[in-house]
């Protein structure tokens, strides 16, 4: 394993984040604060509690998920798309590194950034609501697994995309709607029965449900189902990544 190469990629990617703190860190924090103000205070003030949890506190796990899903996807997709776009991908292909090492470097950096933003948002939320974390180990596990899985998805999107527009397509048209409709701001039980059935097809529901359970022991589906769902998603992303590198799809001619 070429550890130095992994470290070089990881550090290079992290340096990009630190060069652009407004875009990388401040912007997601501000949008989360806005969500708190709008949903938590303005609207949430009129909703007493959901399944025994104050509405402001109830939406925290969903908001964290919303941010880390979009952040891990956009960081990883941009991270690998940019070298492709400007041509510097030649360096990765001609270096004595395996595709696994390239993935670890890029996905690791993107997941770290998303994780950091998740933690910052949690800390920010602490200023607005009384946060309780019933199962901290589970909470960290869900956070880390989600960051890695969606960073892998972002990496795949970055490889497959042929333009900046395509790069934005999945985060804007798929991830954001799925997160909003996956119970970020409500419990599935609040929906009419027919819509509940539809919602169970949304994979993000399982992530948010499991993550929320680690805070308040309140969930839409069993925590084990949530864990299996995230592991399944991780396995699917790993398989696609493995196939991309095996065939050189959109990387090598």
């Amino acid at each position, binding site marked *: 394993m070429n550890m130095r190469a992994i470290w070089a990629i990881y550090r290079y990617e992290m*340096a990009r984040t630190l060069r652009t703190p407004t875009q990388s860190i401040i912007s997601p924090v501000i949008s989360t604060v806005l969500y708190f103000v709008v949903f938590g205070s303005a609207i949430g003030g009129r909703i007493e509690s959901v399944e025994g949890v104050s509405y402001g506190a109830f939406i925290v796990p969903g908001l964290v998920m919303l941010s880390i899903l979009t952040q891990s996807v956009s960081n990883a997709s941009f991270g690998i798309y940019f070298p492709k776009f400007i041509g510097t991908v030649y360096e990765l292909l001609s270096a*004595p*590194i395996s595709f696994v090492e390239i993935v670890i470097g890029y996905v690791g950096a993107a997941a770290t950034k998303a994780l950091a933003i998740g933690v910052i948002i949690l800390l920010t939320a602490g200023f607005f609501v009384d946060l309780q974390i019933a199962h901290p180990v589970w909470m960290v596990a869900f956070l880390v697994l989600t960051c890695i899985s969606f960073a892998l998805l972002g990496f795949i999107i970055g490889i497959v995309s042929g333009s900046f527009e395509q790069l934005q397509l999945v985060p804007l048209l798929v991830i954001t709607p799925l997160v909003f409709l996956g119970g970020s701001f409500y419990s599935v039980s609040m929906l009419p029965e027919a819509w509940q059935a539809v919602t169970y097809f949304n994979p993000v529901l399982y992530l948010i449900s499991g993550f929320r359970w680690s805070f308040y022991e309140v969930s839409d589906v069993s925590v084990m189902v949530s864990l299996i769902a995230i592991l399944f998603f991780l396995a699917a992303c790993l398989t696609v990544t493995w196939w991309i590198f095996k065939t050189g799809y959109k990387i*090598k*001619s």
Partner: protein
Amino acid sequence: MAPIVDIKSLTKSYAKGPPALNAVSLQIEKGEILALLGPNGAGKTTLISIICGIVTPSSGTVTVGGHDILTDYRAARSMIGLVPQEVMLEPFETVINTVTFTRGLFGKKPDPALIERILKSLSLWDKRNSKVMALSGGMKRRVLIAKALSHEPSVLFLDEPTAGVDVELRKDMWRVVDELRESGVTIILTTHYIEEAEAIADRIGVISGGQILLVEDKATLMSRLGAKEMEIELHDPIDALPESLAGYNLSRSDDGTTLSYVYDTQAGRTGITRLLQDLSAAGLVVRDVQTRQSSLEDIFVGLVKEKT
């Protein structure tokens, strides 16, 4: 001694069009400078890209330092430095960071002293903390060279490194190439500038239509294919060649003041003495004589034309 780069029957075909490389075989010896000459689309960049791992070959094998580029790619690639044809650099990164990054990618431990030496030799040290996007085109090319040297390669590929750069950088690069050759680095250079190949290469390869037309020691190539031309300036212009000189391969300039005589330096007799005597016998007064060796460019153009 086994060649440091050994290319056997290398072919690259795409779904459409003729193959980019057609059964190319080429052996490159350790420590030599090989210049690959060829017109646009000849397959030069494809050949380099395959050896460096950027393009997958359709068939054939390549070993670098005895290591197969596919099955033992780590060992093979760690020996190779590549300066690509296009200027491809992360614009927002500083010079020193981007060069250090490349060394890391090749799995080498950080060596600030070496990076400093490389940047100084390429006159980049003063610009080390500048962002790449703030550099001129010539400076960006130097950064590409610095990146390729950052991991101390033993085989260096320079893919048209001086295309569109000023004379100063070209000379700087030739100096760097010279220093690298002295330290034992093998250099493979593709170029459009034939004088560049003529000036720095030990061997010349000519590639066209995805095939190697010839690989020859530069001096041998020049002498084997090199014809010489003698220009004879006459004191008084002539309207036509005298009958007595019809047996010579002579051509007259439009103004009638100069005669050109092409001869083979390898032939037993060049015919110069007899020609000069016959010129005198025909009553022509010679004012000046000069000879010119045909350049590599003439040879190259001739070869490619012959092929097509």
